[in-house]
């Protein structure tokens, strides 16, 4: 039973990994690519880790898998945010079909009101 639940979670994780990588190839823009491929971390690899935990139970392997879930869920959004901010500051243009750019208007209007404090 627990093997079945674990394999279902691993299948969900593999599906999200594959779709995230297809989005990484397919999307037209760095920001869209980042938004598509960050799903591969929290839903893909964390789901694979959860399947590993269900298949092994509370052994040392399962505890390490839980630890890895916590670590990945804490660090991956931070790195994605830093990357998108760095890409915007270094002057990469948005895709021509993009509607709005709120971060640029924030940076041009307010003289460091949000970030400095």
């Amino acid at each position: 039973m627990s093997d079945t639940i674990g394999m279902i979670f691993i299948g969900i994780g593999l599906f999200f990994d594959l779709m995230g990588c297809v989005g990484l190839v397919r999307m037209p823009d760095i920001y869209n690519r980042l938004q598509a491929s960050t799903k591969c971390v929290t839903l893909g690899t964390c789901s694979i880790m959860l399947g590993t935990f269900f298949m092994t139970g509370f052994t040392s392997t399962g505890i390490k898998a839980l630890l890895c879930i916590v670590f990945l869920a804490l660090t991956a959004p931070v790195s994605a945010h830093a990357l998108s901010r760095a890409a915007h500051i270094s002057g990469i243009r948005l895709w021509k079909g993009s509607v709005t750019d709120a971060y640029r208007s924030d940076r041009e209007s307010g003289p460091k009101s949000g970030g400095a404090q």
Partner: protein
Amino acid sequence: MKKRIQWLIGTALLLGVLYVILFKGLPVLFYQDLPFVPLFQRCFYVLLLSSALCLLRVMFGPTAADRIVAIDILGILIVGFCAILCIPTGRNWYLDIGIAWALQSFISTLALAKYLEGRNLDE
């Protein structure tokens, strides 16, 4: 029209590779005596397909940020690969490799983002 033909070619290639992975028996290269291997073998090949797509973005990425994103996702895929690899072999130090790889990938991504932003590393 040209874009639709590109869509068709890409979808046909992807579905063909997925059909070969899921329904045809690809060769098993390691650990043939252990349980669950015909199922986990397909998981390994799906992750290898995802890594190949990431390497395509590394090769053809127009800017440096695309390459950094692709390398980051490749590290995450390798962590998943280690997690799957530790079940049929029963050796739990593969997850140690995964945790260390996640840490190293996080730190290197932050450092590359700061370098791309134009700041110093000790700021």
